[in-house]
């Protein structure tokens, strides 16, 4: 027996909601699969488009920092012989996952309007499935990252890839990033449903956000007073943690990372609670 409460009633308790979501996990995968299928169906290069955007950005930054303004490698990467291309790519791959996942999530409720207004299922499915489809691109690009690391390992430039025990931390970093993205995705997709400005605003801000995250330079390359500011942005410790455990071979768990994990968890809690409270207004406001 299901009772549909009126607007004065409460939403389903979180645990029941989670069990409902697991019932619809199938749908989440199907929608992600549909997005991927449709995205690459009419393209010649297909899934290569998962790799080309971060690769081309990596080339651009390598060219700009290496050739045009000639910044010292050690200042950019923190090491004299760590190739900048690898440094940049290792930041760009998780960053693109972040940016693309959120861009997809923000529009997901609005672009699935017929489903939102006609059929009931947990609406979290839309932003989450948009992130799954970005995650698939992330996995593909990660393979290229590994290939790049191996190639540079054998390339005579003094840098060597140390497969290290720190790789075991990778899933935790990915999880923290996903938690943060899920929280933001739920909040922003809902906000965009009520006010389309959010989508436009996000597209304007995401570039700025990338440069205020240490994606293509290391934190130490900036003036000390700016570091505190940049580290307030939870994506900075997350991107840095990827590099620490993948390339540098250092434990990624420091204080800033703990802070990022806390912010991510808080974002998800707030985002999800808010989402569930206002979910039943979606159909009449979309």
């Amino acid at each position: 027996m299901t009772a549909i409460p009126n607007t004065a009633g409460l939403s389903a308790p979180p645990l029941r909601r989670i069990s409902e979501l697991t019932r619809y996990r199938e749908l989440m995968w199907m929608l992600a699969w549909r997005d991927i299928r449709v995205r690459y169906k009419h393209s010649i290069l297909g899934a290569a488009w998962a790799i080309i955007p971060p690769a081309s950005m990596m080339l651009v930054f390598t060219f700009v920092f290496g050739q045009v303004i000639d910044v010292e490698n050690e200042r950019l990467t923190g090491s004299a012989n760590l190739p900048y291309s690898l440094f940049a790519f290792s930041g760009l791959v998780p960053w693109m996952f972040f940016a693309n996942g959120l861009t997809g999530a923000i529009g997901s409720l609005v672009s699935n309007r017929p489903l939102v207004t006609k059929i009931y299922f947990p609406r979290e499915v839309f932003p989450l499935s948009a992130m799954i489809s970005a995650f698939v691109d992330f996995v593909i690009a990660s393979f290229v990252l590994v290939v790049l690391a191996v190639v540079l390992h054998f390339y005579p430039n003094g840098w060597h890839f140390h497969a290290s025990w720190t790789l075991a931390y990778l899933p935790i970093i990915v999880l923290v990033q996903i938690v943060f993205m899920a929280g933001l995705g739920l909040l922003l997709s809902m906000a965009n449903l009520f006010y389309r400005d959010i989508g436009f605003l996000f597209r304007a801000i995401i570039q700025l956000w990338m440069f205020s995250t240490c994606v293509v330079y290391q934190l130490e390359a900036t003036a000390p007073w700016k570091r505190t500011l940049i580290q307030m942005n939870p994506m900075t410790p997350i991107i840095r943690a990827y590099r620490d455990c993948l390339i540098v071979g250092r434990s990624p768990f420091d204080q800033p990372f703990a802070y990022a994990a806390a912010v991510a968890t808080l974002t998800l809690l707030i985002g999800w609670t808010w989402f569930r409270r206002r979910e039943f207004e979606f159909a009449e406001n979309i």
Partner: protein
Amino acid sequence: MSVGITVENVSKRFRRGERHNSLRDLVGSWLRFGPNMGEGGRAHENDFWALDNVSFDVKPGEAFGLIGPNGAGKSTMLKLLAGIMRPNRGQIKIDGRISALIEVGAGFHPDLTGRENVYLNAAILGMEREEVDRKFDEIVDFAGIGDFLDTPIKRYSSGMYARLGFSVAAHVEPDVLLVDEVLSVGDRVFRTKCLEKMRGFLERGVAVVFVSHDLRAVSAFCDRALVLANGKPAFHGPVTEAVSRYHKACLNSFTADGADEGGLVDVEPIRFMDAGGREKQTFTPGESVTVEFDVKFLHPMVRPSFGLSLIRAEDRMVVFETSSTRMNHVTPPAVEGTRCRVKYDIKLNVQPAEYVVGYHVRDRDSSMYAALEEDARIMVIGGNSCGGVVDLAPHVSVKSLESAPPPSWSKDAGRLVAS
């Protein structure tokens, strides 16, 4: 005892026009964290009740009809039942898994093949993958699209598209089924199949809520029905009575144009006259008839249009309809308080039966509308020389094309038989 669906004193409020008129509204709604527009929520001058204190219940194995003119609140009710929206007041209880045939093929993607879309659509309707695997052949058979299974559905005809959508939805095993106008898809054979499928649901104890403008389908399928008019329950009871109340609900119903409760027009009883000007109710097929009614305007209308329709009483089939606008007949603007006489000359080329004559008045440039089709009835009587709907005034002749007529066809043989 299991209850199917219980709807208790449900009301739903909507707001006309744009959502936010002021920055204060916008900031206010941003800061609002709790449930919105509840019982305690601020009332707004543009608020209106799309549903006002509606109650009904549907038992397992029962088909319940929701009828009413456009904008009466039928679709809103279905959305509340489906859980897409929440009522502002009252409660809805539903026993078991809900399946909604509200939009067939929801979530279909034109670039994906029929096969892919079956899986996608089934997931949207809450089916598990192994359940789809199990029913896949059945779904495809029912839709009758076998050869096109691996074709992107953007190449499907609209009928195939709708059939596939219906078929997937019909293979969910629900405890409660919500149906909105979907039976209008597909050809007659498919419609019959759909009705059979729905009867099968009823036999298995599914509670069905059926929304349709096809009153014939509603009365054929449902036991009880609720008539909604402007969001309020106008009648609740046996379906035959509900259908007749529906016409009363249509009378003087108008959309959100601000017309007051008094109605748009007063219509004098309609009159039927034969070629000789005699008023009567019974005619023969092919007879010329003059239909006449007087209209008094209670509201000004810029371009009034007067419509006429002939509906077979037995099954409510619309045999014929037209309007002065459709016939390019220019009518002068109507001044409030004035009267006019509308006269239609028609030839009753229809089969013998009882007919309801419907007529309506509407303003072409706004959505004001008034219709009546209940009490005006005529009988057409005559020999049963043909069947169907219309009388095409046939003449028949049969002539042999053989130079030497076969014996059994010869005139002599004919005479022999005749004598």
